[in-house]
């Protein structure tokens, strides 16, 4: 094992000038900007759902939409704040109130709707387009958020990764609600949080975090 004074000498030998990380809120804004661009591109390509104006007049839909947006915003701010060593992990509680509001609107009906949709699919193409929307929003946003969090790979990042998954799920649901006529919140949540759980399981088996892997490849 190298002696501590030698380690210090080695670390101090070439301290290249580093580019300081921007404030978490600024980085959260950049990520939300990317999300807005993605949703706008999808809206241009696919078009907004035809009954959007009518739906927005329904309190249930409007509250659900606002709650998912708020959950996404709070979750991304929370995980970026908590990823810094001098910030409290209590930040991770920030998305819980809007999440509770969002899930309270979800209810049991949505789960059963999703299950019932499978055998009686009137238009399988629409379901495929929904899945494409979820994938096209979730994958780039998820990857971008992991890149933004890569500096935290040595700070016990499991909860940060889970909160990042929640942020992505919330934004993907928002995109889905604006573009498609089906309410697939449960599906999107399961898709995103399932993916995060899968990543965490692989990390546990592999003994190495995805953020560490990303960190080696992007720094």
């Amino acid at each position: 094992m190298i002696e501590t004074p030698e380690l210090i000498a080695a670390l101090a030998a070439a301290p290249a000038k580093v580019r300081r990380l921007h404030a978490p809120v600024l980085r959260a804004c950049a990520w939300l900007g990317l999300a807005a661009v993605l949703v706008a591109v999808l809206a241009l390509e696919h078009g907004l759902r035809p009954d959007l104006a009518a739906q927005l007049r329904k309190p249930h839909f409007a509250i659900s939409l606002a709650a998912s947006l708020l959950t996404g915003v709070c979750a991304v701010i929370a995980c970026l704040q908590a990823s810094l060593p001098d910030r409290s992990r209590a930040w991770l509680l920030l998305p819980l109130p809007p999440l509770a509001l969002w899930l309270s609107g979800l209810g049991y009906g949505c789960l059963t709707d999703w299950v019932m949709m499978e055998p009686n699919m009137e238009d399988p193409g629409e379901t495929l387009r929904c899945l494409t929307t979820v994938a096209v929003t979730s994958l780039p946003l998820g990857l971008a958020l992991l890149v933004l969090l890569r500096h935290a790979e040595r700070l016990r990042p499991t909860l940060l990764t889970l909160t990042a998954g929640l942020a992505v799920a919330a934004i993907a649901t928002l995109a889905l609600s604006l573009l498609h006529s089906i309410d697939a919140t449960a599906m999107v949540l399961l898709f995103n949080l399932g993916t995060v759980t899968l990543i965490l399981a692989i990390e546990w088996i592999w003994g190495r975090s995805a953020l560490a892997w990303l960190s080696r490849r992007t720094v």
Partner: protein
Amino acid sequence: MAATLMRPGPRPTDPSQWSQLMARAQDGDAAAYGLLLRTVTPYLRAIASRAHRNAADAEDSLQDILLTLHQMRHTYDPARPFKPWLAGIAQHRIADRLRHRLRRSAREVSLDFEHEALASVPAAQTGMDHRALHAALGSLPEGQRQAVLLLKLQELSLREAAASSGQSAGALKVAVHRAIKALRALLLKGDDR
């Protein structure tokens, strides 16, 4: 006047100076960075020693924290105090190491006297295996025996073995492959008997 001369200026080891030193380190000032690392080491060692009973573990932990500090130095915001940032890194790294240690100790069994006594039994077997191997080696053709001796027992590189034996590297590779195959057959036959 005397009082003014005697008044101590801000010491470099003063935690209020750490933030400035770190800001200069972020700008590439090697001297400031070295001074900062040396200055924070006793503080970090005290934190690590409270968490680990074993001095070597505490030192490992200290080095881990220093490495993480180095890796994350771009995340420090000079507008904020340095000590909570540093303490945060220390807390996370120590918690992570303790958790890994706990997980590892759950999978490991410490060796005690009985294990050592059992471990000494196969020593006699090792001697027998050794003799059997030498007998098997003796029955190999000269080229194959030489290839095994040079490449496997003396652990020479292919180039060194080729220079020493006068055989080409390709011929040595083939000879050692055939020798291992023949040895395996001979030793398995010996076991069956």
